[in-house]
């Protein structure tokens, strides 16, 4: 079995603090305050950029390499999931519809 170590536990506590800090960022202090203009503007774009940066490699890469084939279930499930979201504005439909495309291709055809 994998062992538990103190360093990992401390990092986990640190990540929990990051969750609290980011979710409460602007209402921790009683006094109203604003970010400098550039940071305020960056926050218009940084969240989508961060998420897209996490997601994109999960869709088009395999063990650190760009996938070379179009026969990959993810390439079909991801755009269909996104299209379903823009159709009905439902994250649940994105997950359900995306998996309904992914699983048959992945388990059935081995893509």
């Amino acid at each position, binding site marked *: *079995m*994998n*062992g*538990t170590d103190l*360093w*990992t536990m*401390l*990092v*986990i506590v*640190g*990540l*929990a603090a*990051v*969750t*609290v800090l*980011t*979710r*409460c*960022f*602007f*209402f921790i202090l*009683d006094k109203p305050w604003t970010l400098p203009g550039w940071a305020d503007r*960056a*926050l*218009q*774009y*940084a*969240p*989508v*950029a*961060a*998420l*897209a*940066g*996490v*997601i*994109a*490699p999960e*869709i*088009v890469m395999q063990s*650190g390499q*760009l996938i070379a084939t179009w026969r990959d*279930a*993810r390439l079909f*499930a*991801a755009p269909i*999931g*996104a299209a379903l*979201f823009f159709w009905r*504005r439902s*994250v*649940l439909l*994105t*997950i*359900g519809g*995306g*998996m309904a495309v*992914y*699983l048959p291709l*992945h388990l059935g055809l081995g893509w």
Partner: protein
Amino acid sequence: MFFQRANYTHPAFKEAARDMLPLATGISAWGLMTGVAMVKSGMSVVEALAMTFLVYAGSSQLAAIPLIVAGAPWWIILATGFCVNLRFVVFSLHLRPYMMHMPRWRRMLNGYLTADMSYAMFTKRFAHPGSTPTQWREEEAFLSGNYFVTWTSWMASGVAGIVLGNLVPASWGLGFAGVLCLIGILCSLANTPLRKLSALVAGGAAVAAYSFPLKLNIVIAIISAVAVSFWLERRGPVAWKKAT
């Protein structure tokens, strides 16, 4: 908080819980896969449980797991978590007027428990912050009912994932449900032409810079997308900044 009587006896609590219930399946699928991913990547059961219960943020957990396993410096791991959580910083600015009538510890506990779905549902139901104690009570009861369902389904499915971790073969690829959930959140946030563009730029940059150590590709993705958007903000038509 859902353990306060004034909240869980309020009709808005039930209403919110009912609204959230259809989404619980999606959250559970994601929690299950995060649980499986933690155990499969080599974290111990204690560590995986601590992460599920304390961190309570699927996207930053998924981003942090490979870094923890690789033994990356702690400040890189926390900075990555912060970057992935940047959307919550924006949400918190929006939520401030709804929260300021509460004492700080209650604001922070409510804030900590309010994730993507609860935020979206809450701000849809209450488009404007209330100004009377009756409205405040209704808002807090609704928010509590919302995150009661989210929290419970996340924790239950996370624990189930950790327990089942060694039974579900990784080859099934069920973890892709987590990616689809993030795609849904991304699409809901990308509501202006410039934000859509910035998602495309960031996605491309993250793939191109993938070989950089320590997930620095995410930082590079953010910087390049923000730079491109800043540049186009000045030059492009005003309509690019408007929500679609």
